[in-house]
């Protein structure tokens, strides 16, 4: 495991945390757990010549992961026509703890 890979992984998870604010707390926590677990395995097994950016490129854009996580949900209603405005991010609870 290289310092570079660990740093890139943490940056990726931070971006995922930002991108997933609109998910429900349980979906957000599950996605976080899955991706942090994946990164831990990948980083631990990375070849010496493997680049962090290649690993993260294979993983994909965090926004795409979030989009996939909501693929079974109906499209959000027109906010301007809604009587109930969307909850602020803080109402969704704190971001899951970071990897040790």
């Amino acid at each position, binding site marked *: 495991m290289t310092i570079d890979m660990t740093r890139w992984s943490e940056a990726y998870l931070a971006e995922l945390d930002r991108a997933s604010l609109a998910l429900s707390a349980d979906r957000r926590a599950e*996605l976080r757990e*899955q991706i942090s*677990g*994946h990164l*831990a395995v990948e980083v631990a097994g990375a070849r010496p010549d493997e680049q962090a950016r290649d690993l993260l490129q294979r993983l994909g854009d*965090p926004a795409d992961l979030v989009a*996939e996580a909501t693929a*079974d949900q109906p499209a959000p209603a027109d906010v301007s026509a809604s009587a109930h405005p969307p909850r602020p991010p803080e109402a969704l609870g704190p971001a899951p703890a970071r990897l040790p």
Partner: protein
Amino acid sequence: MYDMEPDLAMNPADPAVADALDRLRRGAVEPCVLTLLISAPAYAHDIVRALSAIPGLVTSEGTAYPMLSRMRRAGLVQTHWQESPSGPPRRYYALTDEGSLAVAAFARAWPTFRHAADTIVRTPPRAEPADSVVPSPATTIPTTAQESR
């Protein structure tokens, strides 16, 4: 005109190719995942690597995880944690009875669908003689009803 051999050199960054792949994935990738689980439960990371090893099957490794979660919520798979000889416990995915039924139904339907699509796509459009009796599927002129859909 249409080379139907797998194009391993295709460029998924091409927006048109990416869009076509995205449309094809819907409905086809989940049964592929279920098929991977027929023989035994599998560790999530191994499922993801198996899917990403085949070009074109998933958008990226990461998108396979929320797909697995969606299949669990749909009752097609169930998960359990298992101790690992190296590292933290691992989440394993296994077929439910509903998932087994779904993959069996897909296995029956897929050859028919694949053959039907191939019949259309594999036949390059070509000029038919004026006295041709039966046009090939690719050259069949759509009816007004089909066009209006």
